[in-house]
C-alpha cells in the first residue's frame, strides 16, 4: 500500500470565488507531508480535494489533475465514493459515531461497505486499534460507546477507523488542534508509525509539529485577503525550517508574520 500523489495545476473554486490557485506538487509514498501556512491560505481546502471531500460543499469544484500513481482522481468514470475508500481522512475534531461501540466504530468502514464476516472484522479491529496505539487502552471495553473515550483516545479511534479500510493515503486535517499536549504527542508518535504503511498528509498550524513529524513541508500563503491561496514553497522539512528559498516562508516560520 501507499501511493504517490501528483498534483498539477490545481485550482479550487467555491462558486465564483477562487480559493486555491495553481498548485502543483508531488507527495511521496510512505512519507509524511505537512501543509503549513496562515489561516485562510487554502491548505485545508486543498487537502480536501485530495479525496474529493470538498464536494460535500455545494458549488465547490476543481480544475486540474490529481494523480494517484497512474490514475486521475478527477478523470472520467471515477467515483468519489471509491476515491475515499483509498484515500482516508481524519478530521480536526474527533468524530466517532455516537451510536456505535468502539468495536463498531473501527469496523464501520468495512461493515457499511458490506463486510459481514465476524472473524475478519474482529481481526481488522484488533490490528487497526493496535496500529493506532489504542488497543491496550480499550481492549477490555470494545463494546462500550466510542464517545466515552477521552478526546485524544477518540482521535486515535478515528485514526483506527480510517486505517481499518486499508487506504493508500491518509489525510489529516489539523488532527491535534482540539487535543491537549499529551494526547498530541501520542498522535505524533502514531503518525511516525503510520508512515511505514501509508502516505500521510497532514495540515497543521503548529510549526513545531510540522518540524517534528514531517519529511516534506509545503508552505501555503495568499497574497492578500480575497486573493486565492497558493503554494509558495515545498521542500524537505529540514530545508524549509533551516534554509527556506522564499522570503515569505522565512517570515512565516520565524514568526514575523501570520
Amino acid at each position, binding site marked *: 500500500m501507499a501511493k504517490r500523489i501528483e498534483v498539477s495545476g490545481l485550482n479550487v473554486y467555491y462558486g465564483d470565488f477562487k480559493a486555491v490557485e495553481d498548485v502543483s506538487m508531488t507527495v511521496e509514498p510512505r512519507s509524511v507531508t505537512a501543509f503549513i501556512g496562515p489561516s485562510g491560505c487554502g491548505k485545508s481546502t486543498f487537502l480536501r480535494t485530495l*479525496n474529493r*471531500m470538498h464536494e*460535500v460543499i*455545494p458549488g465547490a469544484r476543481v480544475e486540474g489533475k490529481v494523480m494517484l500513481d497512474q490514475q486521475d482522481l478527477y478523470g472520467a468514470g471515477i467515483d468519489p*465514493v*471509491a*476515491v*475515499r*475508500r*483509498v484515500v*482516508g*481522512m481524519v*478530521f480536526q*475534531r474527533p*468524530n*466517532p*459515531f*455516537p*451510536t456505535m461501540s468502539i468495536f463498531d466504530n473501527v469496523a*464501520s*468502514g468495512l461493515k*457499511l*461497505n458490506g463486510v459481514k464476516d465476524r472473524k475478519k472484522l474482529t481481526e481488522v479491529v484488533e490490528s487497526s486499534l493496535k496500529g493506532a496505539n489504542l488497543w491496550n487502552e480499550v481492549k477490555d471495553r470494545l463494546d462500550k460507546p466510542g*464517545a466515552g473515550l477521552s478526546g485524544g483516545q477518540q482521535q486515535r479511534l*478515528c485514526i483506527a*477507523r*480510517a486505517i481499518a*479500510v486499508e487506504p493508500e493515503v491518509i489525510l489529516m486535517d489539523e488532527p491535534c488542534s482540539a487535543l491537549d499536549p499529551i494526547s498530541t504527542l501520542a498522535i505524533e508518535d502514531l503518525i511516525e508509525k503510520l508512515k511505514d504503511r501509508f502516505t500521510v498528509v497532514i495540515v497543521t498550524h503548529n510549526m513545531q509539529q510540522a518540524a517534528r513529524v514531517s519529511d516534506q513541508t509545503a508552505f501555503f500563503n495568499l497574497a492578500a485577503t480575497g486573493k486565492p491561496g497558493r503554494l509558495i514553497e515545498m521542500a524537505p522539512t529540514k530545508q524549509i525550517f533551516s534554509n527556506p528559498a522564499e522570503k515569505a516562508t522565512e517570515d512565516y516560520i520565524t514568526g514575523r508574520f501570520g
Partner: protein
Amino acid sequence: MTAVAENKPAYDGKVLDLTGKSGARAFKNTLATVLIVLAFAVAMIPLLWILFTVVSKGYHLLLSADWWSQSQRGITVRRAGGGAYHAIMGTLIMALITAVIAVPIAILGAIYLVEYGKGTRAAKVVSFMIDILTGVPSIVAALFVYAVWITVFGFNRVGFAVSLSLVLLMLPVVLRSTEEMLKLVPDELREASYALGVPKWKTILKVVVPTAFGGIITGVMLGLARVMGETAPLLILVGYSKNINLNPFNGFMGALPTMINQDRTELALPNAADRVWAAALTLILLVLALNLLARLIARFSAIKSK
C-alpha cells in the same frame, strides 16, 4: 408613578443611580414578579382541575377487569356494566394504521428536506406544503376524506377512512420533528462516513438516522398522542359501535372519543356519567402515557452537540 419621570433609569445615561433601586422601580419589579408568578398559577389551575375531575369521577370503573375486557354490547344508557374494550381497540387500531401510513412518508420526506433537497426550490415547495398541512384543522381533513372516500368513491363510513384523515394530521407533526432531529446530527459524522467511502444512502440509514433515532421516535409518539385524541374525524367518518369490531374496513367502530361523545348528553344518569368519565380517564391516560414516554425517550437520547 411620578417618581419614574424624575428618576430616569440609569440606562438613559442621564442619572447615575448608585444608591440602589428607587421605590417606584422596586415596586414595579415586585409587581411584575407577582403578575408573572400569578400567570403561571392561572395556567396550572385548569390542568390540575381537569385531571382531578376526570380522575376522581372516572377511576372506579377502571379498577374493574370488565372495563378492560368487555364491550358495551347490549348495555343501554341507564344500565351499568360493560367495558371499553371495543373503544380502546378501535382507538388503537385506527392510530396504528395512521402511524403505519404516515411515519414512513414523514421520515422519508424529512430525509428529502435535510439530505437531498436542501436549498433547492423543490424543497422549498415541499416545506411550504408541509406548513399548509400543519395548519389544516381536523374537521377539514375529515371533510376531505369524506369527499374522496364517500362522495367520490362511494365507500362506506369505516375506521380506515378515519385513519386516512388522521394521516393528514400526523404527517406534518412527525415530518417536522424528524427534520429538526436530522438537522441536529453534526455534519462531521456525515463527513466521517463519506471519508470511509460509504455511499450517501448508507450514511443516512446507518449513521444519520440512528443518531437521530430517539428524537424521531419522540416525534412519532407526540404525533400518535395528537391523533388519538381527535374526535372530529370520528364523528364524520365512522359511526360509533358498542360492539367489538376489529375490522377497519367494514362496519362502524368504537373509539374512546366517540364513546365519550355517545353518552355526554345523558350525564344526568349516573351510569352514563360514570362511563363518560371513565372513558375520558382512559383516553387521557393513553395520551399522557405516550407524551411522557416521548419526553423520556427524548431526554435519554438527546444528540450530544459538543
